[in-house]
């Protein structure tokens, strides 16, 4: 039995009185890619924010490596968060810093590498996301997709054990999107990273997903779980089938 890097137990999320999703219970297996899918506005980004410890859950628990995140003290929480890398839906690059500075900041803060080593790592990370040579650009000088990739470079700067991607391929051309899928698989296989991806891209879901969770916007809870290919082969309900076949029929 594989171990779970993250466990979500009976999580209920709400903004004020507006319940977004209730009673979510699932596991994110270690060293695998878990896809969180669901229609737009069903609460995927919100779930991510809860998993990242940015929002305290209304009810329920989030466990990292068996440890209750919100039960832990501040110092423990920080040390858990340091093992996590995040690619935000909007990129969230720091606009007053160049790409190199954006990627270098975590390395400067959390490692004792020299300036030169950091620069080399930065170039390597930027090359991995296909942005070699853009070190001196400011985020505002990039296209939307390039910003996304630069944010990815920042997310993987510290080789985190768990990586969260919020719609990584949105805004990318098909070739870049495929390269990104390859990179995700590569990070999983070579560095053994646990990866959580929020995405709508069917191609991506089937290419990278080992495990998946389907958030239903009508039932407001998880209605399907398992490897995406299995879900496609045996959809447990109509909405999952519709989602995985782009609203088309099975054949």
């Amino acid at each position, binding site marked *: 039995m594989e171990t779970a890097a993250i466990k979500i137990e009976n999580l209920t999320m709400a903004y004020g009185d507006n319940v977004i999703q209730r009673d979510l219970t699932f596991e994110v297996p270690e060293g695998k890619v878990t896809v969180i899918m669901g229609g737009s506005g069903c609460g995927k980004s919100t779930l991510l924010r809860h998993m990242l410890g940015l929002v305290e859950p209304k009810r329920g628990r989030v466990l990292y490596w068996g440890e209750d995140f919100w039960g832990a003290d501040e110092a423990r929480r920080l040390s858990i968060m340091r093992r996590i890398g995040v690619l935000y839906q909007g990129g969230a690059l720091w606009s007053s810093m160049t790409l190199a500075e954006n990627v270098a900041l975590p390395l400067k803060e959390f*490692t004792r590498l020299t300036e030169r080593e950091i620069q080399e790592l930065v170039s*390597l990370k930027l090359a991995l996301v296909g942005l*070699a040579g853009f070190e*001196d650009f*400011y985020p*505002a000088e990039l296209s939307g997709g390039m910003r996304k990739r630069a944010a990815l470079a920042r997310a993987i700067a510290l*080789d985190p054990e768990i990586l969260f991607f919020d719609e990584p391929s949105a805004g990318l051309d098909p070739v870049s999107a495929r390269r990104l899928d390859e990179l995700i698989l*590569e990070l999983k*296989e*070579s560095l053994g990273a646990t990866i959580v991806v929020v995405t709508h891209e069917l191609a991506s879901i089937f290419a990278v997903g080992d495990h998946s969770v389907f958030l239903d916007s009508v039932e407001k809870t998880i209605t399907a779980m398992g490897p995406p290919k299995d879900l496609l082969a045996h959809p447990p309900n109509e909405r999952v089938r519709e989602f995985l076949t782009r609203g088309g029929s099975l054949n």
Partner: protein
Amino acid sequence: MRGSVALRLEPGGRAVLALRGQFLLDGGVPSHEEVARDLKDLKGISSVGFDCGELGKWDSSLLAFVLRLEGELGGSGIVVERSGLPKGAKRLLDLAASSPRGQARERERGSLFLRTGQWASSQMIKSWDVVGFLGEVSWSMGRLVTGRARFRGSDLLHVMHRCGVDALPIVSLISFLVGLILAFVGAVQLRVFGAQIFVAALVGIGMVRVLGAIMTGIIMAGRTGAAFAAELGTMELNEEIDALRTLGIPPVEFLVLPRMVGLSLMMPLLCVYSDLLGILGGLSVGVVMLDINIQEYLRMTREAVKPSYFWIGVFHSFVFGVLVAITGCFHGMRAGRSASSVGQAATSAVVSGIVSIIVATAVITYLCQVLGL
């Protein structure tokens, strides 16, 4: 265990680097320079491979080590063979190498002559920008007058609420204190001549004619001008202004006009309010410190303050309202696309707002002099 490297020679001019232990970002990595030096010192080496049999955990620092080593050995004729590396590391390196290199940006630095010229022409463009903005504002004012301007009435009400009602507490405090200070400083001097009753005239004329307007102007430059700049700057950042433009809604009309109209309507009201509170401040000094009776003080104030002073003060504040709104909106709409540029826009808005208030005061005062008001 910290990562280490052992050098081993194989027949045929081939060297092998045996990597041992962990190569992790926070663990420290062996120096590639030493390894490269050792390799170069051994004459007759043509290629170098890796043996990762005893390699423990690794992350990007291993990749960086290999890349640096390759860079160091670049000109020496020693070929680095990646085949011995862990499969994942090799694939990541290949992935990094396969990505197309972006055009590095050229940062040319011309001669001093050229740069001076460039600076001058950029300043020219900036001043034209101001003129263009003012033109756009006047044009949309024209549309407003002819009733064709497009903006939301709710925006106007919102602006009026925020820069009118919401500003009352701070305006009250500052104006009352300014009146008080003015009376206090005046009283000390006037008492020497036994002319303390003229404190009422001093405070009344001072507040009504210019100080009420200036104080509200400066408060609003700091409060509302900065808010306008930050708000429009953030909208520019989020491409909200572009979205208006592509819809065919002129941003100046839609965003600047309600702010300008709202502020220049509220400013005179705030100014009158400030006048009254300033006089109240003076009155409290007069009554408490100088034992002037309240009716007497008010009568002196009424006699000293001519109606024309009142209108001059109101005119000042109207002009200040326009100036603060224009500087705030201008800097906001010209803000760049980063968080710090929004901050800069707010700063410039306040600074140029205050400067323009003072300059305008000087001009209006001179004109009044000429007109004999």
